[in-house]
């Protein structure tokens, strides 16, 4: 693989962040206009985390994602159309409409799926890393999870094994300051990075609004994990702009509007990275505006497509409960 020039890679990161934001804006609109079945959790504000990390991965590398998973899915290479189709329960969705927002998966790009059990994917990511090593594939697995998920015991169980067995897995804790309607300091005692370190895992804290910082650290750690120096732990300090889910509108009882607008105005990962790109003279403001416009157009088109797309046929309801096994395999000598 030839190394892309820095500017190329910067622009890719910028574009990917804008794609996430555009996707979420459309998804929110779908909810507000009552076209979305159920609820969904917006990733807006956290784009630099998913993009900074996923741009350091190959498409064979695996990730596991969360209930707030659209960002990871886009960053790992998914297409808008199949994503919106999935969110609307349509047959052309990544999971034929069976998974929806909280279970969206895109195995062709190494995304093993969002997960509606907080912390539920920590074993899966660790197992993918174990599998990568057993198969000699050279892949790395990244486990995305929130600060709230650090309360789940499963994390400590699998970190222990990952450390004992030196597995190529990166635990990426997206600390957005809240789990649902509760501040992180009310649910997390001590220090999150120290918890990983206690298992002998090298741990870092990084500004999750700075895509370059995230990407640089990720590149280093992923390269080292590939060489067998893993596992690693990263705590990424970030913020979610919307409520816990799209329906969480009145949230002043747990966080102030001032706090929200401070993050949005001063620490937005897209605005700041765009400003830096132009300040460095790497790109003209109009170029960025053109990217934005293209991406938003794509998103709108994809929404229109998905709205018009077909639901799965009723006969699908009891398909895919069990995976088929080739009968020849189940015979002697098979």
């Amino acid at each position, binding site marked *: 693989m030839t190394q892309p020039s820095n500017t190329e890679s910067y622009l890719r990161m910028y574009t990917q962040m804008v794609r996430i934001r555009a996707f979420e804006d459309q998804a929110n609109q779908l909810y507000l206009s009552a076209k979305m*079945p159920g609820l969904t959790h917006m990733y807006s504000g956290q784009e630099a985390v998913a993009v900074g990390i996923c741009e350091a991965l190959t498409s064979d590398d695996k990730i596991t994602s969360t209930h707030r998973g659209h960002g990871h899915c886009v960053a790992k290479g998914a297409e808008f159309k199949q994503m919106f189709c999935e969110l609307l*329960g349509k047959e052309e969705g990544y999971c034929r*409409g*069976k998974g929806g927002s909280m279970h969206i998966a895109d195995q062709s790009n190494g995304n093993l799926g969002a997960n*509606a059990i907080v912390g539920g994917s920590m074993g899966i990511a660790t197992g993918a890393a174990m599998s990568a090593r057993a198969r000699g594939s050279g892949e790395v697995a990244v486990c995305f999870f929130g600060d709230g998920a650090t*309360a*789940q015991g499963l994390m400590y169980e699998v970190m222990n094994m990952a450390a004992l067995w030196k597995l190529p897995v990166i635990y990426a804790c997206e600390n957005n300051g809240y789990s649902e*309607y509760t501040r992180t300091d009310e649910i997390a005692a001590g220090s999150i990075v120290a918890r990983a370190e206690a298992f002998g895992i090298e741990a870092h804290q990084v500004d999750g609004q700075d895509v370059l910082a995230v990407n640089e650290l990720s590149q280093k750690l992923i390269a080292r994990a590939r060489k067998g120096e893993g596992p690693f732990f990263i705590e990424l300090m970030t913020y979610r702009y919307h409520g816990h889910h799209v329906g969480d509108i009145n949230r002043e009882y747990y966080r102030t509007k001032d706090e929200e607008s401070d993050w949005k105005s001063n620490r937005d990962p897209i605005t700041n990275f765009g400003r830096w790109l132009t300040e460095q003279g790497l790109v003209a403001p109009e170029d960025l505006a053109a990217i934005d416009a293209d991406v938003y157009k794509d998103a709108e088109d994809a929404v229109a497509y998905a709205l018009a797309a077909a639901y*799965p046929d009723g006969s699908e309801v009891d398909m895919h409960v069990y995976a088929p096994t080739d009968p020849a395999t189940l015979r002697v000598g098979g």
Partner: protein
Amino acid sequence: MREITLSKAVNEAIAEEMRRDPTVFVIGEDVAEAGTPFKVLSGLVEEFGTDRIVDTPIAEPGFMGIAVGAAMTGMRPIVDLMFGDFLFLVMDQLCNQAAKTHYMSGGKLSVPLVLRTNMGATRRSAAQHSQSLHALVAHIPGLMVAMPSSAYEAKGLMKTAIRENNPVVIFEDKLMYQDKAPVPEEEYLIPFGQANVKREGTDITLIGTSSMVQVAEKAAEILAGQGISAEVIDPRTIVPLDEATLLASVKKTSRAIVIDEGHQGYGITGEIAARLNEKAFYHLDAPVCRMGAMDVPVPFSPALEDLTVPTPERVAALAARLVAGEMLHDA
């Protein structure tokens, strides 16, 4: 009589019992200021404070275990499990610890706790937020299992659950939180193990749990239009189960369908049907039939999800076949 929502009924039950007994407390995720995502507990923290309405980290096995220890030592915890699907996470503390402690200690220790959680699909919440898992806990000796079918039931059963000296799992139907029903202002409790005959009938017995009681009642309406008289029974608690009331009805009507929103396969309908078949065999004109949720993970797509749960139309159609004797020819 005033009408209140199921959500409000649960809230009242807990508040009344907390006023009555200082050892009662609530523990779970976002139960305090947020009052749970379904807002069922709104207002309680204002009255009882954060020492008795305790917000936890996202650690279901952990706070379930803490509740067991608190219950063993003089407190009466109400564990709030945000979604019934998370039962899988607390099974060890619930089934290996809470359920067995009284027995294993030869009756010396007891675990008076309530695990309140929910069930019910068709909210477009997909496979990990839509399950109805009461069959799993009903199988474990030492646990009691309540399934309220209305606001009235929810209040009365919750109050009994809190006063019980045993671990009780109570399943509220998420879809019913906003449903209103007449609920007296005066205190009342609903005893465990006493089924409620919701509608009398002579041709067939429809036994429904939780929201399936409403489904059964609607099916009975449809059947009435066809000249078929259906009796509708709500067992209220599946452990203990009021076998006597169910048997009396089936012996009278000679036919029955058990309707439940858990998966049909190896779920609670099989047990109830098997008991009725066994003990009312001589009186039956048709096999006791069942209608549970389909044996598939709950799909997200609305086009699929609605197919997975029993509906009044499907129950009525099956009942009509039974009454017509069509099941006999199959069997």
